[in-house]
């Protein structure tokens, strides 16, 4: 059974359908990539899944339960987490405290347990050395990893990554990819939105392609790379599918 499904999801902003009748499903342990030109509706779809927006039509089904229309914090507690395009650390709090919040509220742990888990998670994402630093003063790549750590701390089984690697250099991207594989090996499910094709193609088991709010293609990376509709959508954009 799919761990997360979207059925006929539609979201309007004014007269414009930012997401239009999108169906998708993700199996447990899968890595689903989501690509599409700028403005295709990927972030909006994530926001709909996460409860930030209520869909105008359709449902989001998480582990068999309909969650569309619930508030984000409830959806988080049910096992879904999302990283944001623009990272939002709790700047005055330390790196450890940031992750702590995830455990305290996403998983409803006690202080002692949440702290212990937070330290473990920070080691896992290789931020252990920075745990006392104010999160507002660490570098952007570190902040991205912190965002990921916080998502993991909430106990999420499915993590939505919204351009978590934007602006990173190739070495940093490799490190994040390694981390994502580690996370996936722990049994987590990932949905990855990225503009760096190499990354998405490399890590995804399957890919869905959005354009103008609609799903135009779906399949394995090579199927999608050779899909005419996809190539046409990206025509004019300099993209490397290898």
């Amino acid at each position, binding site marked *: 059974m799919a761990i997360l499904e979207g059925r006929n999801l539609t979201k309007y902003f004014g007269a414009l359908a930012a997401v239009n009748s999108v169906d998708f499903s993700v199996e447990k342990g899968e890595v689903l990539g989501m690509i599409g030109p700028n403005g295709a509706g990927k972030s909006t779809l994530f926001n709909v899944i996460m409860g930030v927006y209520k869909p105008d039509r359709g449902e989001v089904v998480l582990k068999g339960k309909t969650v569309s229309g619930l508030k984000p*914090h*409830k959806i988080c507690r049910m096992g879904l987490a*999302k990283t944001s395009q623009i990272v*939002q*650390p709790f700047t005055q709090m330390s790196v450890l405290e940031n992750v702590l*919040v995830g455990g305290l*509220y996403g998983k409803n742990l006690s202080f002692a347990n949440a702290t212990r888990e937070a330290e473990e998670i920070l080691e896992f994402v290789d931020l252990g050395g920075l745990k006392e*630093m104010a999160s507002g003063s660490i570098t952007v790549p570190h902040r991205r990893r912190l965002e990921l750590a916080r998502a993991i701390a*909430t106990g999420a089984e499915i993590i939505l990554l919204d351009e978590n690697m934007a602006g990173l250099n190739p070495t940093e991207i490799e490190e994040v990819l390694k981390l994502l594989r580690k996370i996936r090996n722990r049994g987590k499910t990932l949905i990855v939105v990225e503009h760096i094709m190499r990354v998405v193609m490399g890590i995804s088991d399957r890919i869905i392609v959005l354009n103008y709010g609609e799903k135009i293609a779906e399949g394995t990376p090579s199927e999608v790379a050779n899909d005419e509709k996809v190539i046409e959508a990206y025509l004019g954009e300099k993209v490397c599918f290898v």
Partner: protein
Amino acid sequence: MFRKLSPTLVVAIVISLLIVPFAGVSGYVIRLLAMIFFWIGKAGCWNIISGYTGYIDFGAVGYYGIGSYVTAILMSKGQVPFLFSILISGIVSALIALPIGLPTLRLKGAYFGIATLAFAEAIKQIILEFDKTVGVNFFEGPHGITLPIGPQNEFFYYIGVVVMIAVIGITYWIRRSKFGYALRAIHEAEHAAELSGVDTLRAKVKAYMISAFFLGLMGGVEAYWLTYITPHMVFDVLITIQMVVMSLLGGIGTVFGPVVGASFLTILYELLHRDFPYTYTIIVGFIVVVVVLLMPKGIIGTLQTKRVIQRTRLMQ
């Protein structure tokens, strides 16, 4: 980042406060100290909602005034004893805070400030006009309500000590609790907090109601102390301003900021208001401007940050 309080120090301070009225100080000093304690309490309440969540409340006096009126009516018309009255005042204020807080705490910063200001002014107007409009003799409108004569200043001094310790205690406890983390997360990145599982609306409303409860309770106590209240007195927007400035000056969001700010400004007020009634408020205005432009973290906040920077430097 947060120095733990030494229990011995706390006990020592509390004991000295309790002994003061027996140490032969003048009634004037006792009264002044009591005033300071109540302002610490009020500023502390404001700090719980606005300092921690960052939602700047400009209608706090609304709950203070509601509490004043509840106690005034209960004691003068209902012969309800003082302690019950103030407790009911607190509860009524907290209950009113729920339907007010739920819709307004969804608004972004400045709109929340405007909405809460509108709320406080609306309640004032309603109490002013209610009797005339409905044709009863309940709130007494602009004539005000007279309460039974209360005990000496020492009585209110001790109530002040208890309330002040309660408010500071709760502020301190919140800071180190799970609830405190939620509030701080809301302040720093509300959307991220919501995505991390924090029920942001519930946390905000909870803080708002706690603040309203104590404000209502204090309104009740001070109504008894003043013996006579009118809407203009207990719904005065200047009361909110004082709470804001005291917290801002002392250090918004810190536990002892309100203590520093309230003490300083109450003493300043005492020195100025008899001979230079308007000067005090003008100075308050200047303090606001200076704090916002030069010292947004207030006195304690700035000191805390300096310490953090020093410690971070030592770590590197």
